[in-house]
């Protein structure tokens, strides 16, 4: 049970399922205050009913990014401040090996990129002024290379990594922490049927422990080592490999 969240004020964007839902649950259980943001409010309600004093649900579709600053402010009002924000919203639709579907790809860009920009820009504006807080983005090991299976998902996560790196370079000197988490496959709706996934409660507990550690983090040592190597494989060789 993470104890370092007692009294802390958090926003979880994408809190209706997967890592986001589990993060919200662990923060609330650990004595923190959490604003849960998601499109599907009915999924947020049970946690809010269980901890009515500490959980504040907000309905919002991250693709409606013009609305983000206002919902963000409603969250900080409800919380009475902000210590950290975790952007968890992300989609990875199935893509066939020969499929190039722009509509599907742009829908992914909307959630994984545009929504992240809208929310994390709001958080960055606030934290640059107030000089404290953590911004945490859920990237992915998938963002480390462009692979055959998921061209746009890979690039959307690579975008997030670079965007967070830039925020980090801007904000660290203001006392703000910026954390990139690169989970591997984690049990969620996104990874149904996959093998070797990490239990979602483990992933969430690790993320909470890393929330104030500025930098990029893998959740497993094996990932850290594997991706250290994978990132350095020259492209002409990489394209011949089946990874």
């Amino acid at each position, binding site marked *: 049970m993470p104890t370092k969240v007692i009294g802390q004020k958090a926003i979880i964007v994408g809190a209706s399922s997967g890592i986001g839902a589990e993060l919200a649950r662990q923060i609330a259980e650990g004595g923190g205050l959490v604003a849960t943001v998601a499109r599907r409010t009915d999924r947020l309600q049970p946690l809010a009913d269980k901890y009515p004093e500490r959980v504040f649900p907000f309905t919002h579709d991250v693709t409606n990014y013009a609305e983000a600053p*206002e919902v963000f*402010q*409603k969250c900080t*009002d409800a919380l009475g*401040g902000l210590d950290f924000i975790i952007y968890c919203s992300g989609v990875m639709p199935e893509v066939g090996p020969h499929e190039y579907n722009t509509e599907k790809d742009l829908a992914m860009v909307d959630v994984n990129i545009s929504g992240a920009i809208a929310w994390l820009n*709001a958080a960055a504006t*606030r934290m640059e*002024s*107030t000089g*404290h807080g953590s911004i945490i983005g859920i990237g992915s090991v998938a963002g480390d290379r462009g692979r055959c299976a998921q061209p746009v998902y890979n690039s959307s996560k690579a975008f997030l990594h670079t965007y967070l790196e830039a925020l980090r370079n801007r904000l660290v000197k203001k006392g703000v922490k910026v954390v990139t988490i690169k989970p591997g496959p984690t049990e969620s709706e996104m990874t149904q049927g996959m093998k070797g996934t990490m239990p979602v409660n483990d992933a969430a507990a690790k993320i909470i422990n890393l929330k104030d550690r500025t930098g990029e983090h893998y959740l497993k040592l094996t990932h850290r080592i594997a991706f250290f190597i994978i990132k350095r494989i020259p492209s002409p060789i990489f394209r011949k490999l089946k990874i």
Partner: protein
Amino acid sequence: MHLSLDRLANVTGFGMTAGADGYLYRPTQVEEFHQILALAQQTGRQISLRGSGRSYGDANIGSESILLDITRFNRILDFDPTTGLIYCEAGVTLEQLWRYTLESGFWPPVVSGTMFPTLGGALGMNLHGKNAFKAGPIGNHVTEIEVLFPNGNQETLTPEHPLFHQVISTAGLLGIILRVKLKMKRISSGDLRVLPISIPNWDGQFRVFEQEREQADYMVSWIDCFGRGKSAGRGLFHAGYYTVDPSPNPITLRPEHQDLPDTILTYFPKSIVWRFLKKLNNRPGMSFVNWAKYTSSRILGNGRPHPQSLVGFSFLLDYVPNWRLAYGSSGFIQYQTFVPAEHAPRVFARQLELQQAAKLESFLGVMKRHIPDNFLFSHAVDGYSLALDFKITERNKDAVWRLAHQMNELVLLAGGRFYLAKDSTLTPEHFAQSIGMDALETYAKLKTTLDPQAILTSDLAKRLHLDPRA
């Protein structure tokens, strides 16, 4: 409608133990105050008033509220050098006041240990000084205030108006004081005659205060909180007496004569002193500093009066710039209680014993004499106050709060009071018991009529249940 996020700022109380993010506005015109009130109404957001941020705890901060900082609303509008009546905007500081009026032979009637508070903040808290036993709080010397109420009314209140004694002292929760007329104290010299007396124990402390009470104009005593047994309550008492300068244009009234020096021991720049104090800012270090101060007080200047500038005597806290940083990043709290004269010897002695038993001695203890006043949230009693500074760390925080609650109980049993400008530890129950249900009911009624939407708030108001929205 949402407020622009780039208005956000993080502010802390002076002790740096409490902080909050809010939307910062620094108006310069009365119209802007009205606009900010309207903005609060439109957005359903509350307003926290803030002057120079000298309240130690959470009275000057309000999480996610509009932080209405009055420090730019700071013009002196009129001054009559024959009567000493000064008319100014609420953001004017005590420093501005004395610099403006001293050469005409006037000094603020009441000043705190620092010259930086604004008049608005000073009246919100109704602050007192080392002359509290004669002059009472600063509100006693105000002839008029102009107040903007959250219900939209703007009124001019004189001491005869019933709201006068209610707006002053209620921590900025009933109305926004915009302008103030204050009667300055006439003086003919910028120097006081100051008498230091080394005091061996509590008995000595109470005796000297009673003995000097008639003649002295200012009285304050420093307490070494590490003194125990027969030496408990030992310290150094100072009395200040106004003096008469026969020259028609005395040099002592010039600001150059008053200004605090930039160096200590001639060569040592004061701006870095806090860094050295920080090294000593731990229990053994401060035990030594207190012992050394007491020991030297017995030898150096004991019982020998000397002249000292009003600024040097009054604003002891400004003597070491940035001294609060010596307490480290997690800050400190100030804890001041006011106890009726007949109970004070017992209560203060017991407070010291509790600190020593918990190994949480205050690094600085300051004692003063007070008289009662009739402001709604008056902190004064016919008795004494003891102010204590506690360094706060992650590790000792809970223990300090427990100690404070134990000391609160003693004060409550003795019919004592607390001071919102310095408070960090009170519970709603402790505050209610000290101030009395009548005062709280009056406050609640006034809040409903003057601020029906409960726009004015602060983190202190929320903590003590003085904000109906909380």
